[in-house]
Every structure is written in structure tokens, then in C-alpha cells.
């Protein structure tokens, strides 16, 4: 989002701030004209599991982030459609390639009535990258702030973090390289504020209902572990008058079938995700409530590029070519997921989707080419390959399909090894596998989150592939201030890497779920699947 704020002009800054704030107010109301609201604005939403924590700096999983997004608000936020909107910051500007300045609203308050200033963000960001905090996300988001990486590694003190208060309501963030997507990045609450006095007073106990102080549109009323978390509208929130819901209950139901049963019996308004294989059934049964929007996530199979068989790119290419993604998505998983042929998925900012030229070939031609590639690589029919996946009906179904594709089209035998999730992760991390199931959900809406899956020396690269030419393009793109040029370079890099066939992209995730038709504010374009109760409301029914 372009800010109209200019450091040199206070008048302009105030005017621009007012403009943006005004725009955000109009969006926050969010109830289309003519829609009548229900008398009771209370909602129940299943969150899929118990959150791992309510401490924003420590949050890792989706359930934790969903609730933290209600209790806290960062410099920015994303609205119901997934668009970046002002949060505590009412405007922002990239004043030089490596410096962002955020202008904070002066009416933002903590739930105990304290005002929020730039100092709160400085404290929280330092706490986030502090090795003592040991945040699992420190290496994911911390690297975008100057010295963040070095501080997490214990090489610099936290005071060296590139965040500074220019005045009480102006925060400067220095980055080690140009980060054009900073406004999107700071919508993640790991980089959001926590209330220093509360954290220091209560230590590990600070997130408990009796102690917690947040700055979000909702506050924590009740927390029954493994059962539910109840939130109530916070009267101290700066935009409280535009918040419709008065109560939001998050359930921690893990069993997908139990989740649907609660929906059917009227005790749950929002199913976390439909159990595998049930999408068509519920689509027919609840046509008004069914939703299935694509999200920024990729299902793929990692190929161990160091394995003697997979060292040869021809083998990797042949295996990728013969899997019919259309049948996989339409007949096998049958839940509306989209065929994927590249590491970049539809809808992600910062790069275009890449594909293979053979993706449009008829299957016969693809099979003939794949057979030739295998023969050239010396891989004869009857060769055995090992595939590791974590025990799940869904993954099993996909693997059986892939195995049948390779067996019937190329004569390759697949030995499928089902294992517990943690065992699979360990094997993948140690490179102790030949082929393995893999998946990725974007941390932020930029191509770099997906490129980490295939970049040299990346922690997320299970294949251990490396293309230095592509790496140079990514570096060049990240240094560029021209978004169009950056996009071209990153797309080019993604294309080059995928021509090495390090992995087999299969499907882009969708979120098949049931949401009661009387829940307003649900959008088909929220590709990060991040909703705040602030943007939702109950329609009269």
C-alpha cells in the first residue's frame, strides 16, 4: 500500500493519516448496505486444534495465530479479503531502499487503557529476536530487520536491532536489504506489540486470562485448554465502534467429523476444514454454506537430489511429467484443489506462476518423452523407488495414485513407507529419504516464502538442490526497488530452478469448509486464510 505520509511535512502526514484512517474506518464497518444484522452478534468458530501459545512472539501454528490476531494488532493487518490495511500504524512509507517509517495512530490503546507508542514495538521486536525468547519464527521474520539474524544467533545484543522511535508515534525499521513487502510482513503478530509491563510482571503466566493485556479488537475472557477460548469485544480498541461481533468462541476440535457434527447440530458456525473426501457430499448437502477458496500453499513431493537415482535430472523430470494433476485434483483428492506445475502458486505477490511446456501436451506424448528420458538415464522398468509419507488417508490416496501413474506409465515400482509425522520430518531434515511427501503454507504474501523451498542453503529446502544462477537472480531481484523488475527476476529464477526438477509440484491448497450462510464477511479472495472477528458479522436469520 502506498502511503501519503511524508517525513518532511507534518501537515501532509496528518492529512494522509486521516485519509488512510478514514479509508480504513469505511472498510472496517464492512456490512453491505441493506444487510440487516442479527440481534445477537455472537459466533463460534472451530480453530482445528488447541493453540500452542497465546504469546505472539512464540506462536507457530495456525490456531495460535488465529486467536492472537484477535487479541493483538500489529502495525498493519489484513482485512477479510486478504488486503493489507492499517493497524496500529495509520500510514507508512519506504523512505529509502532499506528504511521503512510507520506513523502510529495516537488513539491506539492496550486493553488496560495504556496508550500504544513506538516504544512498545521496539520492546516487542527485540524480545522476538532475542535468543532467550527462542521464537521458532525468529529466523523466518527476524532476517528482514537489520541485525535480526545476528541477534538471534547471539552475535549482537538486542539493542542493535534496526528499529528506532523517531518520536513517540513514529517507528523506523531498517532492513538488511530492500524489503518491499514490509507492510504485509508486519501484519504478522510475531512482529507486533506486547505489553511490556505485563510480560515482565507475570513472566510465563502473562498470557493467562487474568493477566493478559492485548491491543486487538477482542480480549480474552475464558481459556479452557483443548476445549474452547472465549473472546469478548474490547471496548478500548481504537476502532471498537466498527466491530460488530460482541463474542467470539474458538473451539479446539481436532476431529474433522466431530467438527462437522457440531456444525450440523448448530453449535459451530465455522468448520475448520472438511475431512478429506467429503467435499462433494457437503457441497450437495449444504450448498449455501460451502466454501472452497484457493490459498497460498503447495502440495509437492520432495526428491532427494543427492540420491544416486535422483542425481540425474532426467529421472526427476520423467517422474514429474507423467503425473496427471488434473485427474489427481478432480478424481483423487476431489476437493477443488488446483493443479500445480511450479513452486510459485496462483495469487502470490512478487512472482508469476511458472509452468512446464509439457503441461499442455497430451499424456501419450508426455509418457513417450518420459520413457526416453529414463532410458537415457539408464533407469530400466522395474526399478524400485522408496516414497515416505506420514500416516494419513489423504496422503496415502495421493501416493497410491502417483505410484500407479509411475507403475503403469513407466514401469517404476514404488515402495510406500507410512510413518508418523515427526519421523517423516526427521527423515526429510536428515536427507534420509529418496522421495517424500511435502507441503508448504505461505508465511507472508511474497514469492520469497515459496522460493525458500528450492533455494541453496535454505533450511526449508529438503531436496538440497542448488542453482547458483537462479540464486543470483533472486539476490538481484531482492535488491531492486522496482516491483516489476523484481517480479521478472524472481519469476525467471523460479523458472530456472524448476527446470532442474528438484521437486514434483502437485496441487495448490484450497480450504474446503462450511461456514453458516448467516456469517457475513467471509471472502473467496482471502488466500492467506487469515480472518479477524473484527471483519465478520452475523446476518439476521
Amino acid at each position, binding site marked *: 500500500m502506498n502511503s501519503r505520509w511524508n517525513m518532511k511535512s507534518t501537515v501532509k502526514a496528518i492529512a494522509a493519516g486521516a485519509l488512510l484512517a478514514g479509508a480504513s474506518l469505511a472498510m472496517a464497518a464492512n456490512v453491505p448496505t441493506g444487510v440487516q444484522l442479527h440481534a445477537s452478534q455472537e459466533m463460534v468458530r472451530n480453530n482445528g486444534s488447541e493453540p500452542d501459545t*497465546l504469546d505472539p512472539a512464540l506462536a507457530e501454528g495456525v490456531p495460535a495465530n488465529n486467536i492472537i490476531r484477535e487479541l493483538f494488532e500489529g502495525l498493519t493487518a489484513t482485512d477479510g479479503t486478504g488486503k493489507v490495511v492499517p493497524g496500529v500504524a495509520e500510514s507508512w512509507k519506504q523512505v529509502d531502499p532499506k528504511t521503512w517509517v510507520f506513523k502510529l495512530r495516537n488513539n491506539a490503546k492496550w486493553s488496560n487503557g495504556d496508550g500504544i507508542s513506538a516504544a512498545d514495538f521496539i520492546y516487542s521486536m527485540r524480545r522476538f529476536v532475542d535468543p532467550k525468547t527462542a521464537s521458532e519464527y525468529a529466523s523466518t521474520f527476524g532476517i528482514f530487520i537489520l541485525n535480526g539474524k545476528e541477534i538471534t544467533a547471539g552475535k549482537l545484543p538486542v539493542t542493535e536491532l534496526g528499529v528506532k522511535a523517531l518520536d513517540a508515534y513514529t517507528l523506523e525499521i531498517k532492513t538488511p536489504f530492500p524489503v518491499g513487502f514490509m507492510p504485509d510482513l508486519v501484519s504478522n503478530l510475531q512482529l507486533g506489540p506486547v505489553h511490556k509491563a505485563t510480560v515482565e510482571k507475570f513472566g510465563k503466566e502473562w498470557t493467562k486470562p487474568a493477566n493478559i493485556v492485548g491491543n486487538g479488537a477482542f480480549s480474552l475472557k475464558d481459556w479452557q485448554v483443548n476445549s474452547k477460548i472465549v473472546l469478548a469485544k474490547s471496548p478500548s480498541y481504537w476502532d471498537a465502534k466498527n466491530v460488530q461481533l460482541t463474542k467470539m468462541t474458538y473451539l479446539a476440535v481436532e476431529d474433522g*467429523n466431530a467438527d462437522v457434527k457440531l456444525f450440523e447440530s448448530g453449535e459451530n458456525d465455522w468448520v475448520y476444514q472438511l475431512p478429506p473426501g467429503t467435499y462433494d457430499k457437503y457441497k450437495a448437502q449444504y450448498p449455501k454454506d460451502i466454501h472452497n477458496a484457493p490459498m497460498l500453499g503447495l502440495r509437492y513431493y520432495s526428491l532427494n537430489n543427492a540420491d544416486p537415482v535422483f542425481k540425474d535430472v532426467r529421472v526427476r523430470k520423467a517422474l514429474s511429467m507423467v503425473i496427471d494433476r488434473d485427474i489427481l485434483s478432480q478424481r483423487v483428492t476431489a476437493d477443488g484443489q488446483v493443479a500445480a506445475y511450479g513452486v510459485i502458486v496462483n495469487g502470490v505477490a512478487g512472482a508469476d506462476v511458472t509452468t512446464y511446456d509439457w503441461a499442455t501436451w497430451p499424456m501419450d506424448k508426455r509418457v513417450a518423452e518420459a520413457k526416453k528420458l529414463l532410458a537415457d538415464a539408464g533407469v530400466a522398468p522395474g526399478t524400485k523407488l522408496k516414497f515416505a509419507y506420514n500416516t494419513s488417508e489423504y496422503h496415502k490416496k495421493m501416493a497410491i495414485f502417483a505410484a500407479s501413474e509411475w507403475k503403469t506409465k513407466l514401469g517404476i515400482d514404488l515402495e510406500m513407507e507410512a510413518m508418523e*509425522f515427526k519421523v517423516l*520430518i526427521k527423515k526429510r531434515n536428515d536427507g534420509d529419504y529418496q522421495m517424500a511427501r511435502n507441503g508448504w503454507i505461505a508465511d507472508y504474501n511474497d514469492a520469497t516464502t515459496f522460493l525458500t523451498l528450492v533455494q541453496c542453503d535454505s533450511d526449508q529446502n529438503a531436496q538440497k538442490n542448488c542453482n547458483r544462477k537462479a540464486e543470483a537472480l533472486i539476490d538481484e531481484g531482492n535488491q531492486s526497488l522496482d516491483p516489476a523488475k523484481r517480479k521478472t527476476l524472481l519469476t525467471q529464477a523460479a523458472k530456472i530452478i524448476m527446470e532442474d526438477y528438484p521437486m514434483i509440484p502437485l496441487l495448490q491448497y484450497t480450504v474446503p469448509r462450511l461456514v453458516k450462510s448467516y456469517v457475513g464477511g467471509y471472502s473467496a479472495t482471502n488466500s492467506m486464510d487469515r480472518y479477524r472477528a473484527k471483519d465478520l458479522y452475523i446476518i439476521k436469520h
Partner: protein
Amino acid sequence: MWTYVFRRVLAMIPTVFVVITVCYLLLHATPGGPFDSERKVSAVVLANLNAKYHLDLPLWQQYLYYLNSLLHGDLGASFRYEDWSVNELVAKALPVSAAIGGGSILISLVLGVFLGTIAALRQNSVVDYLVMGISNAGTAFPSFVIGPVLILVFAIWLKVAPAGGWDAFSPRYMVLPMSLLTFINVASIGRVMRGSLIEVLHSNFIRTARAKGLPMRVIILRHALKPALLPVVSLTGPLAISSITAAVVTESVFSIPGLGKLILNGAGNRDYTLVLGLVVLVTVITVVFNLLVDLTYALLDPKIRY
């Protein structure tokens, strides 16, 4: 008898110690750790995490550290539920499991003994077939089948009970899961009670009592019931333990925040402290229940003295 109880309680200490040690070693030998996730953490962050949770120490030091905490009544911090200590998690989940599991086992005992007795007295009659039919159904149908059927009928069709969830021991939320556990437990208890009573009724001392002309009611209540209950008591111990600590399926189907869910999540997430804490708890509960079963034997059978 009190000496016996004291000895049994003392024997519990080495039992718990051995169980913890074996479990500790097994847990750490299992591939994957608490911080292995789809998004691999960097080596630096992993080092920070290991330092925070003392996992950077040699295994024997971690073990001693754990034992020391345990002796002070501290089960440690959970890895999976970062904001809660294991003590807090157990304190929240145990009463839920005890209410559901313990409540159902008490109802099952009364119902199971009653139905088993009727079936034994009316052997090969319609009543017997009916009771045995119910009993076999309870054994044959797994809880993940019966549970959803109960939800379908009572929560979705009839709308007389919630489909699941939990709200501060509200009876509304306890009815269906307790019914499910009771159904399964009654099936076992009823069948054992029937078999046991039939066997007792064919004993010489019952025949003698009948020959003496005692009425059937007196024979049953005064002479047959006590010895017939012995196998039921033996069965009740393990049934009660599994109903309280391992009702994983029931908890999952009805989304109940009990111990079973904690055990499952703890093991799946390599939450070392949580799993060990629950193992300690289950061990203590098992030993205590076994002791109670043994003491009940003495009450029922005059030949048994401690």
C-alpha cells in the same frame, strides 16, 4: 491389613521409578523431537530452543534434572502447550476424565451387575438373549462407530443433547460421552457377571443352600452374589483405568478436554514432559486401583486375608 496397604504403597515408588526411566529412554530414542515441524527451524533457533528447555544437556543430566523436579512435585513445562505447565494441564484434564470415566464406571457397575444377574437367573430365556445381545453389540461395535451414531440421533435429529464440547462440568455435555462409555463398560461387566454367577449357582455350597430350603432371593443376595462379584471386581480395575486415562476415542468423538487427548497430543508432538507427567499419573492411578481391587477381594471372599 494396614501393614499390607503400607507395603503396597511403598512398592509403588520403585514401580513408578522404573516406568519413568523406561519411558524416558523410549521417548528420547523415538525419532523426531519437539521442535521438528513442517517448517524446519534454523540451526541457531534450534540451539536457542534446546537451551531454553535444557535439551542441550547430556541425556543423563536432563534425566536427573527431571527427577529432581518430579521430587519437588513439578512435572515441568509443556512443549506443545507452551503457556501451561504439565501440572496445570493435568489439573485441568484429570477432573474431566474422572467425571466422565469414573461416573460411567459407577453406572456401568450397577447396570452391568444387575443385567448380568438377570441374564444368569433367566439363562437361555428371551431376557438372557436380549442382555447378551446388547452386551455383544457393545463389544462388537467400536466406540468410533457408536459415538457418531449417538450424535446423529440425539444431537442432530432429536436435538436433545450437544454434539460435543465441554462447558465446566455441565451435565448437558456429559450425557452422551458417559452413555457411550457406560454402554461399552456394561457390555463387558454384564457378560462377566452372567458367566460368573452361572458358575457360582452350580457350586456345591449353593446346591447345599437350596437343599436346606433357603429362598432363592436369600441364596442370591447372601451366598451367590459375593463370590460371583470377584471376577467383576478384577475386571473393574482395568476398565476404570482405561475409562479415565485412555478414553481417547470418546474424547475425540465428543471433543472432550480430557487426559486421552493430552496423551495423544503429547506423544505425537514429542512433548517429553507432558508424556512423562501423564505416565506418572497413569502409573499411580493403576497401582492405586489394583490395590483397591485387592482390598475389595478381602471384603468379598472370607478366604482372602492380608
